[in-house]
């Protein structure tokens, strides 16, 4: 790693840290700007009870002091405080619980997307303007322009209700099949299109012609030269793909009733469970920022020619 790359990496890490700090700060102050406060709930409680509740959760202190306590707890202990609606549970425990299911869902979906998308894109590029290329492009264009909740609902109607081959409820392992497919289709379509266009770009390069002229076999050209080089832009998509999967899982887990972090997040918004909303936003944001950081740095390391400033 030369000094310029190192400088770039350090700059990106610094930006990521600032971004996470901005997320925490925005989340904190935005949530505290909501009128009424968390205990102005459904049933009226006495002033004394409210005061003691506020003292217990540290809500009677000045806002700025609360902010620094919150920041310190996160940085030193990953502590987002207790949940207001699920009594006796810490926010971080609920998040960790939901993460188990959601991470499984997300990782399988991401792998599926990459494993199907890259070969499909390569095939489309190698058979450019042939029937198979056109079919692949039409299907992926349709997938790219369909919101995840619509995709999920259509899959639910078709496979779980009409054909009844797969369960609609996502709390069992078999029930995770449909949510995984729903989450994987959009990134798969995107990776296919990305691989196709970068493969076409690479196939037009001089070194491919040189390899051909030297008599290198077709298979070796495709796998050794073309595919390897055309995957570089695909690396940059890993960060955005994770962001898509995280936000997609919010609705997909809702549709298929998957007991994951997305559903916990959405229900905490409707329940006004503030510490839970803040905690989940921050954890998911950190996840996305870190993934973006990693994919950018990886991109730079794989191809040092790229100037990313």
């Amino acid at each position: 790693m030369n000094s310029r790359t190192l400088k770039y990496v350090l700059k990106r890490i610094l930006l990521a840290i600032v971004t996470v700090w901005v997320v925490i700060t925005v989340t904190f102050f935005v949530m505290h700007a909501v009128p009424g406060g968390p205990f102005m709930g459904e049933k009226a409680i006495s002033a004394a009870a409210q005061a003691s509740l506020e003292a217990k959760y540290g809500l009677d202190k000045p806002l700025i002091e609360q902010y620094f306590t919150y920041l310190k707890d996160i940085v030193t202990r990953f502590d987002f405080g207790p949940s207001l609606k699920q009594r006796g549970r810490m926010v971080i425990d609920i998040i960790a619980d939901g993460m188990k299911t959601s991470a499984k869902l997300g990782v399988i979906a991401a792998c599926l997307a990459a494993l199907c998308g890259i070969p499909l894109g390569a095939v489309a590029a190698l058979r450019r303007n042939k029937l198979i290329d056109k079919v692949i492009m039409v299907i992926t264009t349709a997938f790219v322009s369909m919101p995840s909740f619509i995709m999920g609902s259509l899959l639910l109607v078709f496979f779980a209700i009409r054909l009844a081959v797969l369960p609609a409820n996502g709390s069992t392992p078999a029930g995770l099949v449909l949510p995984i497919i729903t989450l994987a289709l959009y990134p798969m379509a995107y990776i296919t299109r990305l691989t196709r266009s970068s493969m076409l770009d690479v196939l037009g390069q001089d070194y491919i012609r040189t390899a051909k002229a030297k008599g290198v076999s077709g298979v070796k050209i495709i796998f050794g030269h073309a595919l390897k080089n055309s995957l570089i832009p695909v690396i940059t998509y890993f960060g955005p793909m994770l962001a898509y999967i995280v936000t997609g899982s919010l609705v997909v887990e809702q549709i298929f009733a998957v007991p994951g972090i997305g559903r916990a997040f959405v229900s905490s918004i409707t329940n006004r469970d503030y510490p839970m909303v803040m905690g989940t936003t921050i954890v998911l944001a950190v996840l996305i920022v870190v993934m973006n950081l990693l994919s950018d740095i990886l991109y730079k390391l794989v191809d040092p020619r790229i100037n990313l400033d």
Partner: protein
Amino acid sequence: MSRKFTMHVDMDDFIPATEEEKAYIVQMRPSSTFFRDGMKRLLKNQVATVSLIIILVITLGSIFIPMFWPYSYDNMLGVTQGKPVDASYNNLAPFTYGRTEQKLIESGEKVFPHIFGTDSAGRDYFIRVVYGTRISLAVGFFASIIVLIIGLTVGSIAGYCGGKVDLIIMRIVDIIYSLPDMLMVILLASVLKMTLGPALAGTALEKIGSNIISLFIVFGVLYWVSMSRLIRGQILSLREQEYVLASHAAGARGSWIIRKHLLPNCISVVIISTALQIPNAIFTESYLSFLGLGVNAPMPSLGSLASDALNGLSSYPYRMVIPAVVISLIVLSLNLFGDGLRDAFDPKLKT
């Protein structure tokens, strides 16, 4: 070589041009402008033309159909003042009628059909889809305009001023750009939904609904960054072009350079990215509506219609399929049209 230094006029230079020579300066066809050229390329592109027609049909339909349709989006057909609720109107299948309507038909009167049936509250579903389309399109359009205005202002300030101003603006842009946008959108939308409602009560904005306003605010806060980056980059690179320098050298004034060189080269990129922003906004709106953070009930949007349909999915799947198809059609044709625009008006970007 001595000829060069004499004052003698060479009369050969002044003979009238022959017909053959005149033919060189005859214009073979009228000179084309940048805009006309682009339009010609755009109309040649069949995919883009078909997309444009679909967009126009959907837009005009969503504007004009509610004007003459006999039902309205919030009219519960089974509810008449002073009478018990007529439940026969709820959940009608397509082209079926409620009890009182059937009586009218038997007595020989004509009743306008419910093309898509009615929803669980007895509202004509077709008009709700049309209205939802109108709302979604309007939200997409205005959100893009907001993004355009903010992005254009900030981007041109950064590009024009340069130096420290540029540096500070671009650092802020970098940070906003790396924020996870959807999470921030959800957070802001859910908070604004609670804070804006009381604040707007009694004003003219109340009719639009706090949720749509908060959606616009969210777009204004978060999505201008890529637009401003784009415009800054454009201005920076265009300012240094040789033809701008050449124009300067030929004595052109600033206003001429801006009108003839900078704007035509910049505007196509701006229009294209605004056009591509619309499907993005529609996507976000439907996503938020699906999570219950979208438009206020009883106003429908395509996302909220799909979300409502989730409850009766096993019995009435078409109620999910119809808004789903409309939304995909809009987003798809806008994307394809945007691509066509880019190919037609910005040949340099073509891949």
